[in-house]
């Protein structure tokens, strides 16, 4: 579903030693790590996380937001004329364009837009005259909740299945996990969500087929509403995680240090959780991190299946009416989520693996 380039933006500036779990990073397709002396120098100076953040995340954030602005700038076709209708005088249109700041040059518009976006001010919708930032803040919790439930599902199910499959390699559990995972990976996650509604709502009547209750109103109701879309969204990622973890754990269990630990008389449990899993978990965690953009997209589709008033519906409406600030705002918000999750995953990976931590 997504590439295996393990390092997200930002991981690149960290060297990886030859630790057992590391080859995937060490030789992965790309990563800024490959390549030039310039980057190597930068990397040497980026031992501290603050600098890694600055060199990894900030350029990515700047470039991606610039792409968003450039695209919407090129595509937007005189919104003032659209808003004022056919009978509008050219003066009125010019006045409205001026009040939106659209009569300025491209770079002036971009800088002022970026400056406002950094402070959280995403502008005002052209057509509904409401604050984009506030509207997003109202809707974002829904998509975040779906994504987080999906991530928890992916981690819990994926790690459990992958670990059992690797430990009982070649056994019946291993084969079932491999089969189920390979089926799950090719099924579109929104189709899973639809079938989950058919099974658990329409047929069995256990869970609601749609609607939303905010967490602070009634946590129990919230859970019931978030469970179907969230879990069905997470299953595909869980399958990816299980396959990834099974692969890396199988190899980790064959490593010399595991044999050594066994010779030293450590318990199988300690070897698995203290040594092998610790080294094998990194690619699986990175898989979860890489899945975040896909999961956000899945949450948008889940919204429309379950009738949730989330970010996706807002974006769809905004896109249909060519409401540029809305589109820009939604994209900036999702980019921010993706980048934050990248930083979190990087931090986790760095904590997990001594080789990265040392750097």
């Amino acid at each position, binding site marked *: 579903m997504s590439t295996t380039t393990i390092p997200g933006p930002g991981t690149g500036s960290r060297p990886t030693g030859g630790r057992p779990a590391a080859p995937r990073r060490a030789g992965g397709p790309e990563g800024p790590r490959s390549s*030039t002396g310039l980057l190597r120098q930068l990397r040497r100076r980026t031992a501290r996380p603050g600098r890694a953040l600055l060199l990894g995340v900030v350029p990515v954030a700047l470039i991606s937001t610039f792409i968003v602005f450039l695209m919407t700038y090129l595509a937007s076709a005189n919104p003032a004329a659209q808003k004022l209708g056919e009978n509008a005088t050219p003066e009125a249109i010019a006045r409205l364009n001026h009040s939106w700041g659209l009569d300025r040059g491209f770079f002036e518009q971009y800088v002022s837009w970026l400056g406002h976006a950094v402070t959280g001010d995403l502008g005002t919708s052209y057509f509904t005259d409401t604050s984009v930032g506030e509207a997003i803040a109202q809707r974002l919790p829904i998509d975040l909740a779906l994504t987080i439930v999906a991530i928890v599902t992916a981690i819990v199910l994926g790690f459990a299945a992958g670990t059992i499959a690797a430990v009982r390699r070649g056994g019946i559990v291993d084969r079932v996990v491999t089969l189920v995972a390979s089926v799950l990976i090719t099924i579109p996650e*929104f189709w899973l969500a639809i079938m989950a*509604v058919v099974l658990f709502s329409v047929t069995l009547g256990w869970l609601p*087929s749609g609607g939303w209750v905010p967490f602070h109103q009634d946590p129990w109701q919230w859970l019931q509403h978030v469970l179907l879309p969230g879990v069905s969204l997470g299953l595909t990622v869980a399958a990816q995680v299980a396959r990834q973890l099974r692969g890396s754990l199988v190899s980790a269990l064959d490593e010399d240090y595991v044999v050594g630990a066994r010779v030293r008389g450590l318990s199988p449990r300690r070897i698995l959780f203290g040594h092998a899993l610790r080294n094998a978990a990194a690619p699986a965690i990175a898989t979860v991190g890489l899945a975040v953009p896909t999961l956000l997209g899945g949450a948008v589709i889940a919204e429309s299946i379950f009738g949730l008033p989330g970010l996706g519906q807002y974006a769809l409406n905004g896109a249909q009416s060519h409401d540029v600030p809305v589109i820009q705002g939604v994209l900036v918000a999702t980019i921010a989520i993706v980048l934050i999750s990248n930083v979190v995953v990087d931090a986790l990976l760095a904590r997990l693996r001594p080789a990265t931590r040392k750097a």
Partner: protein
Amino acid sequence: MDTFRRTFATTYVRVAGVVLLLVLIVAVFGGALAPDDPLGQGDAIFAHAGTSGHLLGTDYVGRDVLSRLLSGAGASVLSAAAMVGVGLLLGAIPGVLSAFAGRWAEFGLLRFTDAMMALPPIVFAIAIAGLFTNGQVGAIIAIGVLLAPRFFRIARAETLGFAHQQYVEAATLLGASRTWIVRRHIWRKVLPTIAVTTATSAGYAVLAAASLGFLGLGVQAPDPTWGGMLAANVEHLAEDSWAPIWPGLFIALTAWSLNALADGLRDGLAAESGLVRGAVDDPDALLAGVVPAADDPHARDLAADGAASGGPDGTGDRDHAADPAPGGDGRVPVGAGAHGRPGAGREGVRDVG
């Protein structure tokens, strides 16, 4: 041809190949194969599969489901193909060329691909498709543009593995231009790996096209797409709960066949490099590798082997490049030490230095 044979070595991949062929035939001739008018409404609504002459039943206005699935295949599959085409064009070619670019250009390009990867595809496609006047073209461009970074990274990683081979350096010394080197030495070797990425990306694009069809972007009702049919089914879940099965099956089968094909291709390539690796034991072959004659196929294979097995430009790159999807590699253990010494990849060596 050998690669082709090895790719289809297992029944699993052969079945996938047949399924994919059927899907393509349906995508091209779908409308002609349909037993019924895909837009023609009938009296029997929500007819069950097999009843009143409708093999897969009818939908909420009595249209034949099978006919809609068959004639919807074109829009669903061909738009996915177009997405992959855009991605290939924007990703693979710059990826190969970037390996020969200067440092700053490399730095910039890599940050740029990082930035593209931070954009969530579906949300991005909603925005672009909304801004374009033609929603379908917008959706194709949006997903295609976001597929480009994968091709870029893979093509670049592969090219880097070959770019510092001796025969490339020799060609440079002889005064060959970069264009000539890419055309003569690099392109053909990078192609198989790009083929794997193309297959997995196509699998992803089918799902993305279905998702966008589900959201109502792209082809507009009443013309059928698989995703759009699912959306209509969701509206009528209470009346006909099991209707989503059929479009889902078509989408999943298409995506599966592409992923299985990618797996087969990957395994075929791995088998090939494994076979060639054996040849290094032969001293003559080794010599041929040291003094490569560009037209000698044996030398070419050996050179490929230099990148594919444990050399300093090593395993890591080739293996991972050939292995783009975390989900797609079930049978090849991907983690530690599965292929050669950990950390033997180029980067590992550099970091020590």
